[in-house]
């Protein structure tokens, strides 16, 4: 078995074109992902002080005070630029401010279009307007309580307590890197398939030669599958290392376990390929097509191209995620990144383990003691 292992490893490492797929393609793809998604979360989701322009058509001391209170300090809501109408419109056109507040008899707002920052700006102005309306209402009906009301309304309410959810980063774009790693794991299916095909007499002359040798088929297949796993694992480890240490994508603190997850996924990918390769009655071309189709299809449903697909399946039909090996591998990385305990991680690992065993067992059953109807 060691002999078979040594030579199958050597053969795989000498396939130059296949080495490109193995190493360069995942690195190129993760670089492309990083360039596209790398700063999306920080730049567009994490709150940053909203730049606004204020055009003071009339004096409004109360509004100025209210605006000042939210424009100071490190956690300021707005960064205010005072300007005239023309200047403000230029700033807005050039996307240097998110909106123009016109302070006149009433407040009004001009924005470029829809968006969350303009909505926050609008909400702040509405809050001021509401407070004004409440005060006017109470002043009209119960003027004796006006001072108390104004004092109560100017206090910070602190009604809302935010519960901590996770230590991990809520960057949803990290999901694409999880999906990429899952795809790298499933790319091992092409190696597993080769391990299967190269040991079948009806699909390869090498397979025929091996079949007539006294080596037990199990030994041949096991050795080849193991070497395929080793080679693909190298690719996985290089990819994980590149994403973590070069691109510096936040995937949690449990770095060693990330590699474990990657290796578990790789084993499943190789096993899946081996099982596909063992399906009787199909040519090698068809099997390769099935392997590619399953890899790409399962990657699609694991959210590699559109993350919302996985989210939708997770809500509407979670079982579908659990039978999709790529989605399960994605979940492994996700659990390590987001959950503190290992419960769900171990659950997913178990599912993956069962899948691997099923693939290997099914593959072995389909090829053992095989005599073919035709060669």
């Amino acid at each position, binding site marked *: 078995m060691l002999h078979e292992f040594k030579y199958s490893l050597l053969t795989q490492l000498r396939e130059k*074109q296949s080495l490109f797929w193995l190493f360069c*393609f995942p690195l*190129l793809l993760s670089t*492309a992902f990083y*360039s*596209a*998604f790398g*700063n999306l979360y920080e*730049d*567009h989701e*994490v*709150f940053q002080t909203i730049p606004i322009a204020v055009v003071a058509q009339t004096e409004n001391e109360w509004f100025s005070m209210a605006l000042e209170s939210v424009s100071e300090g490190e956690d300021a*809501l707005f960064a205010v630029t005072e300007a005239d109408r023309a200047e403000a419109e230029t700033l807005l056109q050039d996307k240097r401010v998110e909106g123009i507040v016109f302070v006149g008899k*009433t*407040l*009004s*707002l*001009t*924005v*470029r*279009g*829809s968006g*969350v920052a*303009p*909505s*926050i700006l*609008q909400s702040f*102005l*509405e*809050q001021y307007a*509401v407070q004004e*309306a*409440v*005060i006017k*209402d109470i002043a009209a*009906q*119960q003027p004796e*309580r006006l001072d*108390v*009301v104004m004092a*109560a*309304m100017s206090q910070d*309410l602190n*009604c*809302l*307590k*935010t*519960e901590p*959810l*996770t230590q991990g980063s*809520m960057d949803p774009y990290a*999901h694409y890197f999880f999906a990429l790693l899952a795809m790298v794991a499933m790319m091992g299916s092409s190696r597993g398939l080769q391990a299967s095909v190269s040991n079948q007499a009806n699909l390869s002359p090498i397979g025929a030669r091996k079949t007539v040798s006294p080596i037990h088929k199990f030994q041949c297949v096991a050795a080849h599958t193991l070497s395929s796993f080793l080679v693909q694992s190298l690719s996985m480890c290089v990819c994980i290392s590149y994403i973590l240490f070069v691109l510096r994508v936040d995937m949690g603190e449990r770095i060693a376990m990330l590699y474990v997850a990657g290796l578990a996924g790789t084993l499943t990918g190789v096993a899946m390929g081996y099982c596909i390769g063992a399906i009787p009655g199909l040519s090698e071309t068809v099997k390769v097509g099935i392997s590619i189709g399953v890899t790409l299809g399962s990657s699609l449903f694991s959210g590699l*191209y559109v*993350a919302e697909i996985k*989210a939708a399946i*997770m*809500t509407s039909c979670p079982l579908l995620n659990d039978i999709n090996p790529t989605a399960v591998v994605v979940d492994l990385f996700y659990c390590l990144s*987001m*959950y503190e305990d290992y419960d*769900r991680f171990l659950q997913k690992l178990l599912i993956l383990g069962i899948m691997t065993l099923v693939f290997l067992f099914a593959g072995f059953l389909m090829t053992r003691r095989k005599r073919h109807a035709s060669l």
Partner: protein
Amino acid sequence: MPVFKVFLRILKKYRIVMFMYIAIFVSLSIGLIKFDKQDTGFEAERLTISVSDLDQTAASKALIAYISAYNEIAAPIIGKDAVLDQLYFRSVDLVLTIEEGYAERLAAGETEPLLTDYRVPDSYSAALFDAQLERYLTAVSGYLVSGLEINAAAQKALETAKPQIAVETLQDEKTTAGTVGNGMIGYFRYLPYILIGVLVSAISPTVLVLMSKEIRNRMNCSAISTSSQTAQISLGIIVVSLGVYALLTGIAALLFGSDFWTWNSWYVNLNSLVFMLFCTVLTMFLSQTAPNTLVLNMIVTTANLLLCFLGGVFVPQEFLSETVLRFSRFLPTYWYVRGLYLATGYNGEPWNATDYAMCVCLQLGFAIALFCITLLIARNKRQTQSNA
């Protein structure tokens, strides 16, 4: 035209790959239609908020009514893991729980904690919700202090907290916004990925077969001149490219109905036609340079993903960093997407005929440059082989 006919016959072998790409694209496009909304000026952002009401009082219902006036309410989510999943994937923007005793304690002047939430920390959506919540609860607090009882205060605050601020958008009569929905924009934005994938995956291997040494030598011994062979192969490439383009455009016409036939969609189609031309030339280039199908697959997958990620096909250009955009300007996909934005007024992009023409011309320029390189490589190859 025997070479042309055999080109089509060989191409038939790859029709499954072609249709697979197209089928996946069309399925995704149908999903995109649900995002097909007209961009008509300013609309306040509506968050998706999951609300659990443990208080079940008139006051808590009034709070929910207020929240639902400005946001979408989602069903309560059970379990912290499920909450995390939904927040992570942004299926919901916030998960709010109205604690038991909310009305009672608010009436008594206690404020901590009447409500608990799970959120994406330090996010714009969290800041927006905070602003909305504070608007309402400040009003409730004011009415409570003024002497109203809690339910009355809640109802009154609900009425007072209605929008009062006039919001205008910066008007530009040149903008084309409002005539093409986001679904169609999404369809044409993803088009480069499919065009490159379909054309190169099917046409390049076909050309590789016809240009293999043995086949070419045999063809060169025939009565058909080399230039006629090349012309017939080129004709095959052009016919198939046009056919695929027509199919994809036809699908767009079916999916997007009246949107497709608006005045600016002609610009959209011209833009995509020019890009298709670039894809055709790219196909020819890769057919000349890739030594076999395996290497071809590697190159096309890598090139396609890089062109599309960096050009703003998968991730809108407004989200790409300046560093990336500086590099992207050297890619035809970047100019294709720019042209699409100009033609559709996406993201408030005002119509500018000069800019649009530049985008189209740059794509043509890329196509011409690549075509020249392809010719050079082809001639070099022929000379090398005739000297060998």
